[in-house]
């Protein structure tokens, strides 16, 4: 214990020095506390108190994090990596979070229930905090903590309102499945720790240890570790919870689940993947194989199963599973190119999904149903809404002239570059499956215009609900932005320099 006493002061010094790198997250923390307090005291007089605080907190955190751009440092003994990649990722996910907050606020604004809406904001902020950390760390400990923070807050998000049976069931499935995979992951991590005696997966010892580790146990540990990340990203075979939870959860929460957490997990996986595949030994290509196979299977399963769905939320759940597969492909593509391709795809994906769920939410409030049949003949009543919806569908399929197409094109390009570079059959299969699944996906995405425009529906005079207005506008704007980004992708790409 001697040495510690000796080190302690300069350890503390380091911690103090590292605080500035943590500004953005601190902002979130303060906002978190603030919103709790506001919920307790302010909201009685001014019911938007906690809401506003949350928004400001997120915005401040966004500004702070953007200031870290172009100044790569790392603090807390290398636990915290503040590089451009993380900054961009945080930027995207904070904005997404912002939108989710708005969605949720709009969704529950004039619903009456016992619980206090303010709490949900603070929970969202925690999730944001966890995700922020997730994007900045290369340390298993921190990563695990972050993942758990996000998971727990998501459980609560899903279960918090429990207006109906479905939400309760969804939350239960979510929490149990999540905890199990977390436990499994933890076990895997413990093994990894055992092999390497070091928790920083970028460090030399870590990789060294992995190289020396016995293959069988190693693969076991890897798979366990992946099960945790896989749960967050919901790629096959860890996707099973997603459809039920997405369907059961309140739509804005679904919007949150399908976008924001994925970003964080993806960034983490990206770091891991890049680190581990860059060094060539047995398990580097093992990791490659695992991810490629996961990507291929996920794309296939997600898109194929989606063909059969009748509930739009469930369909979108599968579609986002399929997109996860494509995100993994983008991740692999990330090997070939700077992160901007990956970031671009993430950004576009987030925009598309938020917009889609926003529209679903609007329609749900208008028609009171999320079944595809309920859209019959609505195209006549909401031409703009469904035009944008169709546009989003096109973008999700990946057809020009939309951002989705550009994203796909970049991913294909990078993967093709890899394929041309080292003639690895996995890349080719990825390309082919990627192309094929986009054809398949067309079929179910176009069920929306099919029902809305092609089918004659009885003229249901829907209640014009004021509440959806803001969400509606936001979604429309997002939808149009996919078109704009499709024609001028440089607007977005030039940001990720």
């Amino acid at each position, binding site marked *: 214990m001697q040495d510690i006493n000796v080190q302690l002061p300069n350890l503390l010094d380091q911690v103090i020095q590292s605080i500035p790198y943590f500004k953005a997250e601190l902002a979130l923390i303060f906002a978190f506390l603030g919103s709790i307090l506001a919920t307790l005291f302010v909201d009685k007089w001014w019911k938007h108190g906690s809401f506003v605080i949350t928004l400001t907190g997120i915005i401040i955190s966004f500004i702070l994090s953007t200031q870290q751009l172009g100044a790569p440092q790392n603090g807390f003994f290398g636990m915290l990596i503040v590089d451009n990649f993380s900054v961009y990722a945080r930027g995207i996910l904070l904005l997404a979070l912002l939108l989710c907050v708005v969605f949720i606020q709009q969704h529950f604004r004039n619903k009456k229930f016992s619980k206090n809406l303010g709490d949900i904001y603070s929970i969202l902020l925690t999730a944001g905090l966890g995700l922020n950390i997730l994007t900045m760390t290369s340390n298993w400990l921190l990563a695990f903590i972050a993942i758990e923070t996000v998971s727990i807050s998501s459980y609560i998000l899903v279960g918090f309102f429990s207006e109906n049976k479905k939400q309760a069931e969804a939350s239960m499935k979510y929490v149990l499945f999540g905890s199990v995979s977390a436990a499994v992951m933890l076990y895997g991590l413990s093994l990894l720790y055992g092999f390497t005696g070091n928790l920083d997966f970028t460090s030399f010892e870590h990789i060294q240890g992995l190289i020396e580790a016995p293959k069988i146990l190693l693969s076991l540990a890897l798979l366990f570790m992946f099960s945790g990340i896989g749960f967050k990203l919901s790629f096959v075979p860890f996707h099973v919870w997603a459809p039920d939870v997405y369907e059961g959860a309140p739509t804005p929460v679904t919007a949150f689940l399908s976008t924001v957490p994925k970003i964080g997990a993806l960034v983490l996986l990206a770091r891991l993947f890049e680190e581990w595949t860059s060094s060539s030994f047995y398990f580097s290509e093992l990791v490659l194989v695992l991810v490629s196979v996961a990507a291929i299977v996920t794309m296939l399963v997600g898109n194929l199963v989606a063909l059969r769905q009748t509930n739009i939320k469930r369909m979108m759940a599968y579609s986002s599973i399929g997109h996860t597969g494509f995100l993994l492909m983008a991740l692999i593509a990330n090997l*070939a*190119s*700077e992160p*901007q*391709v990956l970031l671009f795809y993430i950004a576009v994906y987030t925009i598309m999904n938020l917009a889609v769920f926003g529209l679903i939410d609007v329609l749900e409030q208008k028609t009171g149903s999320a079944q595809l049949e309920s859209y019959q003949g609505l195209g*006549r009543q909401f*031409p703009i809404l469904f035009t944008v919806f169709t546009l989003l569908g*096109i973008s999700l399929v990946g*057809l*020009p*002239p939309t951002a989705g*197409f550009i994203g*796909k*094109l*970049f991913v*294909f*390009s*990078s993967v*093709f*570059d890899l*394929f*041309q570079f080292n*003639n690895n059959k996995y890349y*080719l299969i990825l*390309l*082919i499956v990627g*192309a*094929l699944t*986009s*054809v398949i996906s*067309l*079929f179910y995405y*176009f069920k929306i*215009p*099919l029902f809305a*425009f*092609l089918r004659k529906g009885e003229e249901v005079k829907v209640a014009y609900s004021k509440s959806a207005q803001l969400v509606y506008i936001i979604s429309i704007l997002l939808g149009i932005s996919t078109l704009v980004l499709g024609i*001028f*992708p*440089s607007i977005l*790409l*030039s940001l990720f320099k």
Partner: protein
Amino acid sequence: MGLLSLLIFLPLVATALILLLPNRMQSNYKYIALGFTVIQFALAGWLYVQFDNSASGINQISGFQYLEQLPWIRLDLGSLGQLEIDYFLGVDGVSMPLLVLSAFVMLMAIGASWNITKSTKGYFSLLMLLNMAVMGIFCALDFFLFYIFYEVMLLPLYFLIGIWGGANREYAAIKFFIYTLFGSVFMLLIIVGLYFSVVNPDTGAHTFNMLHMMNPNNYVDGSFFAYLNNYYEVLGIPARMLGFIVLFVAFAIKVPIVPLHTWLPDAHVEAPTPVSIILAGILLKIGGYGIIRVCYSIFPDAAVDANWWLGLIGVISILYGALNALAQKDLKRLIAYSSVSHMGFVLLGVASLTAEGISGALFQMLSHGFLSAALFFLVGVIYDRVHDRYIYNFRGLASHMPAYTGFVAVAFFASLGLPGFSAFIGEAFVIIGTFNAESVGTGIPRWMAIAGSIGILLSAAYLLWTLQRMFFGQTRFKGGEAWASALTDINTRERIILFPTLALALVLGIMPSLVFDKMNATVLNLVSLVSQYL
């Protein structure tokens, strides 16, 4: 803002205008559409007249006219290199006539959709959108741009078929869409591959510029599609051949060839008349155009190897389509299959790789363009009146609707290749060119020419048979008196649309030089480009 851009984006203005106008001005939409299309046609015609015949086009930029090249997307993708996408337009002898054709067919389509009443706003805006995409395809010289227009074209069509179509429209629409998309996503992969194989000699960056892709010197050695030391194989197929095949399939679906044609009868039959007109008049041509502009120009070496098979496919399509047409009982379906047969000639002619053959193929595309359009329009005429197309439900129309019968007879004889009409020139020169191919040594045997000529015979058979069954003999309708009164002879609007079309067929049949002069230089250039790999 160059002329071509104007040509392409005029319809977009119309769309915007239509969308902005309030619904109570519904009745004016068609006039807006018509007005813009007329302007567009006039512009296209003017371009055609101004077109310099000596332009050799295809693979050197100097051979293109009305060029527009603006840097569109310039991105530094790090290790992927500088992404260089141009807004690059230009026309040569191949695309110029097709451009005019599309403008003309669009005009016809607008005329044909005169009494569309179902949500005209959406209808005309989609039509104009389609118009824009089509124009763009024929003008684009940057593969990326080309692809974007190519895909954008699908969406309006999906809705036009799906919303304004017949009983089985949903199936037809999605089938059409998925079919085409299936071809084009793989095309996208090939485009990406080409992108990485080709560099712009000026900037040294990878490029989507088609003209650069046509020059072997721009290929990076050892890249996936490289000419030199390229050892890439997929399933044992060399990379360049693979690229050719995939691109060919993508366009062949559009042409369409047997056995990738099954979307066509459904789409044509379910689509409303104007859309059938556009499908037959323009869409199929895009396939042929793509094969010439992309497959043969970018992969000439592979094309030369695959030639024999292309010719065979062409012949099969000719005979298969004709035989199918012979057995159809739905008039529209019959004409749809006849399109398959007639487009087979295009493929055969292109495959012959002789100046005569390729010119013949292009000419055939044009003539089929407006002839099939006219035929579909004529079907529409009776369908509008009695909502039936079943051949055996009509008899002796000749005595009941003489003028209509006159037009039908002219259209039929024109499209069965009666000399004096355009189709004859096209088919005859495809046959002659194909026959020459053997002595030129492009690997197309003579029996293909003969087999193709049998197609001409069959086309005469089914068309005359139809004439005999529907129009001659004693008048008798399934609908009895109700039909007899409903089946009024064609009105002025229909005459106004039909007359120029058939007149055009006649003029081109008598003075083919109007078209050949424009395309000769280009065709020769294409032949020389490809034949150096023979």
